């Protein structure tokens, strides 16, 4: 479907960042293998979202370097990453299908071809029949699915998911977590998932990084295999 590499490596080296006097990230070093899925957990305000913006090349770190798929400049990183924000931020004046197809249209693909590329994904990922609905008529869970497909259709090797399900109720979050796993198995990418939900982190990703309270430092990086929720919470509590 969407022509892209199945993932690209990310290397974050000794990155520190802040705004004015506020130090947000402190000496963060992290690696993600091509096609790997890294969960980043930590207390609110520890710089998790900022880390994603830095990886995507939307902001430049004060110190350290970030390399995505061999590019260490902001433009190169931007070319390799697609961001999915916490609130779906779908455009209310476009149908669900046209929202998902927008990254293709942005890339210069014709409207019709973009729709034809996006439509099969709607059928495969439980959105059949909702193509022509405006986002306002979809449930919160449906909107997040559309937002995820939009991120996928950007055709980037790296997906940066910023608390994608945080705004949803617990039941929907649970359901969408399973859906996301399934979608990523079918459409493998390198993923960085920021979340404050430890269970979601352990379920979705193969590695986890635990950040401290601001300024965020890496307290732990580990494979999620065999790691329990309590292990993570213990590190978080310090």
């Amino acid at each position, binding site marked *: 479907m969407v022509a892209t590499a199945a993932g690209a490596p990310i290397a974050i080296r000794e990155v520190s960042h802040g705004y004015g006097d506020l130090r947000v990230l402190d000496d963060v070093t992290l690696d993600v293998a091509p096609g790997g899925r890294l969960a980043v957990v930590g207390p609110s305000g520890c710089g998790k979202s900022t880390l994603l913006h830095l990886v995507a090349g*939307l902001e430049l770190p004060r110190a350290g370097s970030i390399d995505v798929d061999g590019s260490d400049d902001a433009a190169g990183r*931007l070319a390799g990453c697609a961001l999915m924000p916490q609130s779906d931020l779908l455009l209310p004046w476009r149908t669900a299908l046209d929202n998902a197809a*927008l990254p293709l249209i942005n890339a210069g693909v014709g409207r019709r071809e973009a729709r034809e590329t996006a439509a099969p994904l709607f059928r495969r990922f439980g959105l059949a029949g909702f193509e022509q609905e405006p986002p306002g008529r979809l449930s919160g869970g449906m909107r997040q699915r559309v937002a995820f497909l939009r991120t996928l259709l950007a055709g980037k090797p790296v997906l940066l998911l910023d608390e994608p399900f945080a705004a949803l109720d617990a039941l929907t979050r649970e359901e969408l977590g399973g859906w996301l796993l399934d979608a990523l198995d079918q459409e493998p990418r390198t993923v960085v998932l920021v979340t404050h939900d430890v269970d979601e982190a352990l379920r979705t990703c193969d590695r986890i990084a635990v950040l401290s309270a601001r300024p965020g430092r890496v307290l732990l990086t580990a494979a999620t295999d065999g790691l329990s929720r309590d292990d993570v919470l213990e590190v978080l509590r310090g």
Partner: protein
Amino acid sequence: MRRYAWIVVLVALIAAWQAWVDLRSVPDYLLPSPGEIAHSLWNNRTTLAHETGVTLREMLFGFAMAVAFGLGAAIVLTRVGWLRNAVYPLLVASQSVPIIALAPLLLYYIGFGLAPIVVMVALICFFPITASALDGFDRAPADLVRTMRTLNASPRAIFWRVQLPWAAPRVFTGARIAASYAAVAAIFSEFAGSSSGLGDSMRDQLNTPLVGAAVVLLAALALGLFGLVTLLERWLVPWSHEG
């Protein structure tokens, strides 16, 4: 029913006005009664219909020009950052210039007839549109703009596909304000340099029933333009009324 409460209020006001004039025997050069105004409307219907057409044309052309110029200016000022810093403060300051004072100059440069009136209406009306559009463009959420940058969108694509539609409801708010100026702007401009239009019917200040009749027609024009803009908004920006 509550929607139509204004009709009750209007009828009550007209009735009270008529009663006041009748009971106190107010002479019509001080205050014409609604009945006299209605009479004057009917007696002068041919002239008034013609003058209404003239004023309507000035309002529509002037308003259309204000939208085109107001929105165009906002787009250019948003897309060209340094120009905004250089020009916008001057544009704000220019709003303290009473356009009517410029009327003789406009007449000198453009000549008599429809054109100078239309230009004056446009000059009076464009600013609310520019200001609200600029504000609307700025208010596209930073999160959304950031996300769009990672979804292959160039700054140009972000403007046309995100900022402009995002600003549309605000642009229409500005356009409604401008629409409500247009009627009075047209009358002022007619006073300054025209011998036709409803403004001309208001010139004979002693013929108060005729002045009243012209005011009624002008109010109808103002309401009509306002309503037209509101309808256009519902048609073009349906998402601002959903959810």
